[in-house]
């Protein structure tokens, strides 16, 4: 049970394959029946999992709220990650939970208080359940979630290739600087902010590429996904759309896979 944010990782030791990046493209919220504790006007819960970050589920302002999905299938679906982005959960205590009856809930990770609105990922042991939810307590007012995922993550078969540019250190920020004719500084403005980074892994196997990578591409063609990577107590999380996916043999049996992700990390 690990909570991953840009600032901290809680229980990093329990992560397996910690240095391998993860992709959260599977989303049970998209496949099941979703409901929320409350819904503000124009804040329908469907907007939490429609893949669009500009609209969101919005609560009516209670201190305790939740968003949940009821899933069905045989075998019962599993999840080993939950993630949120484009949210306003700062100050809230968050706990991913599962249930088989919709009334008795088990924590999938320790309660965590969000200290900003940046994406959060929880990793936990694969859990089969009929319900998954994000429990929100101590909400300071109306809160919103623009993107929520739960499902089975894709762990890349190899670590990131040399040259990876950590998104948090390479934000796509455009500035203007103005200097006067006489040499005085007239001001500075941030024009645009976003994230765009290339992800690549070398020496993945044909089998992995054909099965796991292919499934990811199929989902990524339609929906945004989470990408995260941890390193020495800090997480790199991006929620965005995938561009330019490629897979190429680097020798007679291993491949290099890569893609570009454009999205948000704030």
């Amino acid at each position: 049970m690990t909570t991953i944010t840009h600032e901290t990782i809680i229980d990093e030791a329990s992560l397996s394959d910690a240095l391998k990046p993860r992709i959260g493209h599977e989303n049970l919220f998209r496949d099941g029946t979703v409901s929320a504790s409350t819904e503000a006007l124009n804040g329908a819960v469907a907007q939490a999992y429609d893949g669009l970050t500009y609209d969101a589920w919005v609560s009516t302002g209670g201190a305790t709220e939740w968003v949940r999905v009821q899933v069905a299938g045989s075998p019962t679906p599993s999840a080993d990650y939950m993630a949120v982005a484009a949210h306003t959960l700062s100050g809230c205590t968050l706990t991913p939970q599962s249930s088989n009856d919709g009334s008795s809930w088990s924590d999938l990770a320790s309660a965590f208080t969000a200290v900003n609105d940046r994406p959060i990922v929880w990793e936990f042991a694969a859990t089969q359940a009929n319900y998954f939810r994000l429990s929100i307590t101590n909400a300071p007012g109306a809160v919103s979630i623009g993107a929520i995922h739960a499902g089975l993550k894709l762990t890349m078969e190899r670590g990131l290739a040399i040259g990876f540019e950590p998104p948090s250190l390479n934000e796509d920020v455009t500035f203007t600087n103005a200097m006067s004719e006489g040499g005085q500084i007239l001001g500075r403005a941030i024009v645009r902010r976003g994230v765009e980074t290339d992800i690549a892994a070398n020496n993945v196997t044909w089998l992995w590429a054909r099965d796991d990578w292919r499934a990811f591409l199929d989902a990524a063609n339609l929906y945004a996904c989470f990408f995260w990577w941890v390193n020495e107590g800090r997480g790199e999380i991006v929620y965005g759309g995938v561009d330019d996916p490629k897979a190429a043999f680097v020798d007679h049996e291993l491949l290099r896979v890569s893609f570009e992700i454009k999205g948000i990390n704030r």
Partner: protein
Amino acid sequence: MSWDAERSRSGKQPFQYVEIELDRCSRIYGDAFTSPPGSPLVGCQAQVGVTGADKCYNSWETCQDETNFNPLSFWVRFCEQTSDAPRSFNFDVASPSDEGLAVFLPLLRRVQYSPGLPEPGESLGQRSQLKVEFSDAPHHDIGIDKYVTERAFDPMTRGMFFRKLKARWPHYIGRRLRWYQGYIRQERTGYLSLPGTAGNFASTPDSPAVSIIADIDVRAKAALDDWTPAVFQVFISKDDVSGANREWQLGVKSDGAFQFTWWDSGGTLRQVASSVANGISDGTVKHVRATLDVDNGAGGHTVQFLLSDDGLSWTQLGTDQNAGAFTTSIRDQGSLVRVGGVGDSSFAAGKFYYAELRNGIDGSVVAAFDPGRASTGAREFMAETGEIWTVNQSGSPFAELIAWERPAATINDFRMREYVMERFEGPGADGRVAIVAKDVLKLLDDDRAQAPMKSKGELVNAMLASESPDAANIDVSTSELTEYDLTGSPSIGYVRIGGEVITYTGTAVQSATVVRLTGVTRAAPSPYTTEMKQHDAGDAVQLCVYFVGTIPEVVRELMVTYGNISSAFIPFTDWETEATTWLASDNISRLVTEPQGLKSLIDEIIQETLTWGFWFDEVEQEIKFRAVRPADIGDTVVDLSDDANIVADSVKLTDDPNRVINEVQMLYGQIDPTKRKDELDNYRKGLLVADADSQSTNEIGQRRIKRVFSRWNSTASESVVLRYAERTLASRSRNLATIEFKVDRKDEDIGTAQFADLQTLYLIDQFGLPVTTRMQIMRVDSAEEQVTYRAREDFFGAALFARWAPAALEGLFWGDATAAQREQYLFWADSNGDLGSLESPANPTDGKTWA
């Protein structure tokens, strides 16, 4: 914060959004059938399977009950594709009566802005234009389609946003488009999490500022875990408990009542509780407050407890309370101010978002506990009021400060400009869409508006080239019987038949297709003359319009009556002040005998009068009017210099020799209004004024002639025409410099037609020294954070000028005039050269003597 504050901040974060207007029906599909049985159907009478196969999209194009279509403005908002777009924004403030999407669609790629450019003395100039480029993308129709949940398909998988929008709302021409430029801020918020155990609270030391001994006002914003705690809990206090260091405290009792306790200057404990419990649900955030009025003016004191959801609007909890019928005080013993407890007990459990202490009820804030000013985990921070707050921690869990920031903005951070949509471009294969919009003066284009409007009538009977047989009446066959009706006073109308203008004084309907013009005189109104001619049955009978009035009066009538521009855009009082001050209320007049485009009509007025221009100020949403004039007394003239304002490498200096005029030939007093404008022999008077110096070989060495055929000036306007000619020469006989430069948004303090004193190394005197040059702004391109100005050297310069006072001040003596009047108006001396109040050499008063 606001637009003005943000634009000057270094590190500012510009953000823009665009909203477009749709006419969306306010009704719900088929809502007429929800009327009670037997009552008349009210509302939409569409029915699936009867009026259509599926429900409409509340647009005219998809409407199935056009009779009951009831459009309201619905705004669709698009913002830039940045991750910092505010996640909640109150759009309703801008258009409280309209509907609209509650979120930004991040499809805006860029805004290309081409600002308006008046052409002083020539025409309305160029319209400002906006080209807004969007990306197209799938959309779920939530917020757009009222019946999205009832559709049998997933809108995300059908079409793209703009393609669907255009299919549903193809009639966008003339609808509004608003462009908002502004800033987003990173707004910090936070709270102090308290476990309710000993040693966990926040505190700040005693100081003279927080040592309040009289009226006091204490407030806190908190979410207690339990608003009826088993043990008394304190919100805020100045109470060390130990020794005599006890001053006051505000807390909540186990029954939910609030309690305020204080020790008076004699050390006596005073205590009151609210008459009712707080009634707040556990965990809910609430603003709580207590006030103590130590002397209520009736020999007593008053304590009030109050609650609020926003910290602005307060509701009293219960009734006024007191500890007895006496005035009171608060002692000053040097205690700490604490949030979440007192010295050794009453520790609160929950979250504290804010607390403050005010000296006096609604008095000044002397201490403000705001965790948003700190970072998560901080143990100490400085308040806005200057004191240091310390987070005291003990045991586990312990008091912990949690703070965060998020992009935020309010409508006050934005500046809005409004346009009308002209056309869509795309979507194309690249998935991009553009909307082109222009300012409202576009409505005056010659192909959109005319005065007079084309009449439909034709002569029923032929007319001879004399007044017989029936001089008094003319019968006109028309499909619109009211088109010749007379309005206003006196009731006189004019029609043109062929090349003849005829006057009439009334109308009388003769049949369903014939109206009679009565009181006919076969003559144009004085001073015009036209020739009586023979006309055949079936000849067109065109209604004429006779415009008479000041420039503001005539132009307003053209714009509002014939151009369909809302009078809300016309600041007519400002126009009149401008005309009265600078044009001496010059009257213009013209009989217009055939439909002419409004832009042409107004261009003529600009060309024939001392009108600098009419232009649309998109920010103020007003059509501005300016006379050819210098900066007035009281006008803001901004200083701009290389050092402080002008952006490096942005200056471009050019001359505009094509504008030079050193000879004005003016023909005025048109005779026959049905003839062409440029017929030389159709004017009663002419005037020629030349600037010999300018024409000499020492200066331009050429004649640059402006010939004006003035249809708007009558023979009575001789002095006006002369003034026009002289001022035109004064303003254009030199080759004046035009300069383009950029300033940062912080310096965008002047607009079109305003003045700036420019000091730049590009404008120097013969000795090579920079010379301050007064420039008049012609064009402002403020699409980017660096604003581009185009300005022209002001021919008046910064020299002094004088002007005639209004008639009401006739006879005013210098000695009796106010300072403002002396500054504004021209005074002259009597024959003795004295300006004294009695015009007497013996009483020179101010000592002003004509040299």
